[in-house]
């Protein structure tokens, strides 16, 4: 599904943010990516949704070869990758439902399908009753659920979550990770970057450890 081979990334001439990273993620896997601040977790995810290009190495995601993809194809790839961030990144002037629908609109889906899929996604993350709220009318936990709905609504090849619990309290963090696990149990491939190794361990899934841009090994 996702394969990285000897991937390195350096910004300018400074020290490398990532050095010689190789691993692969199978379809339907839920994997955690941990490491201290500055270890390169965000950088690695940015390579996967093509916010950045690798300095060297090869990345393939499903049918896409990310190392050779052209600028024009980036939007196409992004429709197959769901992203979730610490700061939710919801559009403030759109309601929860409209934020989720955006992901379907840009693909050019019909109105009925958008309506149906949006409703399904909102129900799935348990936020349907707040579908008409604007982001500022949602709690952090609720906003992040909307973001999850938007990330999964297109049935992406992979869902990437960068510190998804960074702005949530203990309970909400657990709930959110449980939601991601449920999504995974119904088939979604998910990569979660977090520095909360303890929280990740609770799930008993594969954990990759990054240290200063290099892969230190993996555990469960």
């Amino acid at each position: 599904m996702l394969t990285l081979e000897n991937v390195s990334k350096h910004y300018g001439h400074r020290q490398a943010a990532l050095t010689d990273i190789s691993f692969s993620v199978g379809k339907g896997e839920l994997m955690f990516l941990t490491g201290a601040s500055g270890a390169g977790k965000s950088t690695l995810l940015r390579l996967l949704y093509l916010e950045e290009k690798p300095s060297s190495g090869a990345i393939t995601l499903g049918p896409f070869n990310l190392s050779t993809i052209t600028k024009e194809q980036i939007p196409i790839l992004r429709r197959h990758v769901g992203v979730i961030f610490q700061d939710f990144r919801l559009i403030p002037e759109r309601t929860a439902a409209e934020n989720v629908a955006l992901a379907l609109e840009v693909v050019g889906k019909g109105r009925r399908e958008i309506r149906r899929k949006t409703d399904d996604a909102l129900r799935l993350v348990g936020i349907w009753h707040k579908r008409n709220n604007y982001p500022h009318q949602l709690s952090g936990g609720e906003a992040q659920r909307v973001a999850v709905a938007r990330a999964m609504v297109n049935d992406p090849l992979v869902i990437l979550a960068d510190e998804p619990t960074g702005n949530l309290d203990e309970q909400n963090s657990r709930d959110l990770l449980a939601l991601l696990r449920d999504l995974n149990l119904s088939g979604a491939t998910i990569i979660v970057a977090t520095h909360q190794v303890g929280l990740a361990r609770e799930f008993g899934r594969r954990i990759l450890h990054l240290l200063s841009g290099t892969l230190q090994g993996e555990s469960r």
Partner: protein
Amino acid sequence: MRQLIRIAVEMWRAVKFELLPTFGSLLTIFLAMILPGIVWVASKNLSRAESELRKNLVMNVFLTGELSSSRADSLKNQFLRIGGVTGAGYVSRDDALSRMKARFGGEILEGLDENPLPSSFELRVTEAVLEPRAARALVTRLKAFPEVDDVVFAGELLSRLGKVLRSVKMLGYALALLVAFTAIFIVANTVRVAIADRRKTVEIMQLVGATRGYILTPFVLLGGLLGLVGAVISVFALAEISGYISRSFVLIKFLMPHEIVAFILTGLLLGMLGAVVARENI
């Protein structure tokens, strides 16, 4: 249809928080477009006046006294034989008087008990006579006739009018160019602000896979709309101005429907161009 609604909504969202500046740009575009509009209307009317004059090129040959009809006929035939003269008509002193009365009303000659107007010939001449040297030669020839007192020719006025017309047109082109750049610049700035305002939204759209075109269309149309509305208001203002001039001074002709459409489309195009200039790194 759904696309159109989406685009309209996005456009509204883009200006919602920038209503005052947007209105300011609109006002500026409107004022800017009025200038070349005025020059356009002016040069159109000058052109029309010129060609009117050209078509009715007449040389007035004033005579020393009244002529008998046979004498008038023979003089007419002599005039007609001169090169450049295509027609000749005798205007007796009575004719001249009644013409003047018809034109200015009877009161103007009220105090006079005798007709002060001379008799004259009106000669139609070819456009070649517009050339100053040809005109002078013709005048000299006509003045050589003993019956002829004076010759008045509008040709010089006409060639001066032609010069004015050319300058007005040059001014028009220069203004149009200046205004085009101004409009593009203003719209570009407005759209740039609108995009910057919605930086976050634009980035989120990119994250979920929106194409450049999808994101930019509302902004380009916003620019187009600014130009379009600015141009429409300009046309209304121009119509008002030329209506006022027509009522108070001289009758002037306004732009033709297809010219109005061209004017407005130019506004639309300039606006869209401005937005395209502003698209930056989206």
